[in-house]
């Protein structure tokens, strides 16, 4: 209750006093909000950088798909990539763990640094352990739930207590409670949403620094989608995430930063809250307000 107040303590004041300590910070926030935040000063100055991409060009044979892309992906945040179909967002995502190399006749030029080291010079298997991927359609292995998660560990020669790590990964993927009594069952016995969370657990098992998610929820219902978004919110403290989504609402709900791409170019990149309320580029505004095309 504010000091010096005469009237009896009203119940609303009891609730309000919970936020008493926030006054200083809130006043600060209000001043900042009023001030000069119109400039799109690199928001990533506030967070350290996990991926530093400069002048990235990508080609499918003679067809160029990504043009001169410059982007810094902040550590331990969720960065969303949005844009219309064919804008190059999935192509770009796949360059981050060199998945495009599984396609013939592709070429990448430019710099992609992971924690300061060029990924193009790294051993690709080691890279893909550090930078995991989850795909649009859940793709569990034709094995048991346990073996799906344990697979990557076994392949990498993990010699510790496998069971503990499988449990830990399933917990991080918010799937443990649902499957703990049936780990031996086939992964295909799970629902679509559970399979997707299993794929996330599988990716997390090798403790990646980054998780790339390519439209992970487009095959899932809204309730499951919400669970996975909440999961991402919890995971980001320990894992940097980049998510491609054609669902703008998802980008708005679930990400800290958003990058808008069009025709292979990066048009705008900013804190999600700023991009969706005051976009700087008219093309971004046209896209997010649905006036595109």
């Amino acid at each position, binding site marked *: 209750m504010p000091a010096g107040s005469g009237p009896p303590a*009203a119940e609303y004041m009891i*609730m309000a006093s919970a936020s008493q300590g*926030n006054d200083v910070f809130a006043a600060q926030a209000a001043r900042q909000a009023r001030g000069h935040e119109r400039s799109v000063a690199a928001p990533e100055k506030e967070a350290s950088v996990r991926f530093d991409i400069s002048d990235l060009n990508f080609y499918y044979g003679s067809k160029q798909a990504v043009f001169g892309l410059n982007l810094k992906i902040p550590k331990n945040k969720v960065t969303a990539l949005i844009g219309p179909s064919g804008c190059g967002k999935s192509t770009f995502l796949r360059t981050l763990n060199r998945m495009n190399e599984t396609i013939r006749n592709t070429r990448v030029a430019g710099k992609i640094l992971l924690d300061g080291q060029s990924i193009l010079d790294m051993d690709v298997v080691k890279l893909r352990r550090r930078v995991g991927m989850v795909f649009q359609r859940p793709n569990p292995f034709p094995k048991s739930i346990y073996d799906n998660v344990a697979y990557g560990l076994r392949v990498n020669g993990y010699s510790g207590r496998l069971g503990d790590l499988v449990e830990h990964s399933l917990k991080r993927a918010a799937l443990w409670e649902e499957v703990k009594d049936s780990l031996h069952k086939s992964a295909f016995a799970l629902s679509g949403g559970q399979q997707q969370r299993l794929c996330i657990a599988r990716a997390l098992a090798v403790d990646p620094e980054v998780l790339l998610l390519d439209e992970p929820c487009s095959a899932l219902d809204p309730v499951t989608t919400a669970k996975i978004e909440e999961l991402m919110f919890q995971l980001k403290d320990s894992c940097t995430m980049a998510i491609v989504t054609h669902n703008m609402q998802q980008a708005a709900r679930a990400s800290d930063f958003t990058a808008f791409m069009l025709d292979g170019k990066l048009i705008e990149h900013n804190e999600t809250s700023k991009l969706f309320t005051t976009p700087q580029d008219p093309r971004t505004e046209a896209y997010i307000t649905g006036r595109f095309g």
Partner: protein
Amino acid sequence: MERHFERDLEELKQRLLWMGSLAERAVHQAVHAVLDADENLAESVLSEEDAINEMQIEIDDRVQRLLALQAPMAADLRFLLAVTRINSDLERIGDQAVNIAQSAMRILRHPQVKPYVDLPRMSELAEGMVRDSLNAVVRGDPELARNVLQRDDQVDRLRDQLFRELLTYMMENSAVVFAAFELILVAKNLERIGDHATNIAEDVIYFVAGRDVRHPALDRR
């Protein structure tokens, strides 16, 4: 699974109620600055004005953010819309309190026009309406909100009564015109505070029940 959106909504509610507590305190102090000819209380109200205004901006920013990023539906959407309106009414209540405090400063050294009887009654009523409208927000209680709406007539009647009385005093004794005029302004401010409290109560009914009960005289058919 509690979504972090729900926590954001809860936090927003708390900030709104904190703003409400600042506004209610401002009214209480401002009126007592008049009743007790207390300069310190008046100055306290004037110095608190910025805090209330900053909160209005902060709360509007939070609402804008939540609307943009979460695209809320149904009760969540109505709640956020109601918050922007309540926010605005609370800021206006703060302004009215400042006006009252300024009147207090101006009549500080003037002798009291008459014993204060109706003014304290009116302020108690208005403060009670503000307090109960905010309690209605906490509880999501449309009954309490309707109860607040019903008290508005009493406040209006007290204002009219005060006007008549003070006019009479002014006509009988021109020496008191200055102070009496300020008291008329104070009564007007208190009546406006009551109006803002009824607005808040209407907003509670809106976000709880989805019914817009503003301007009952309008034919809604």
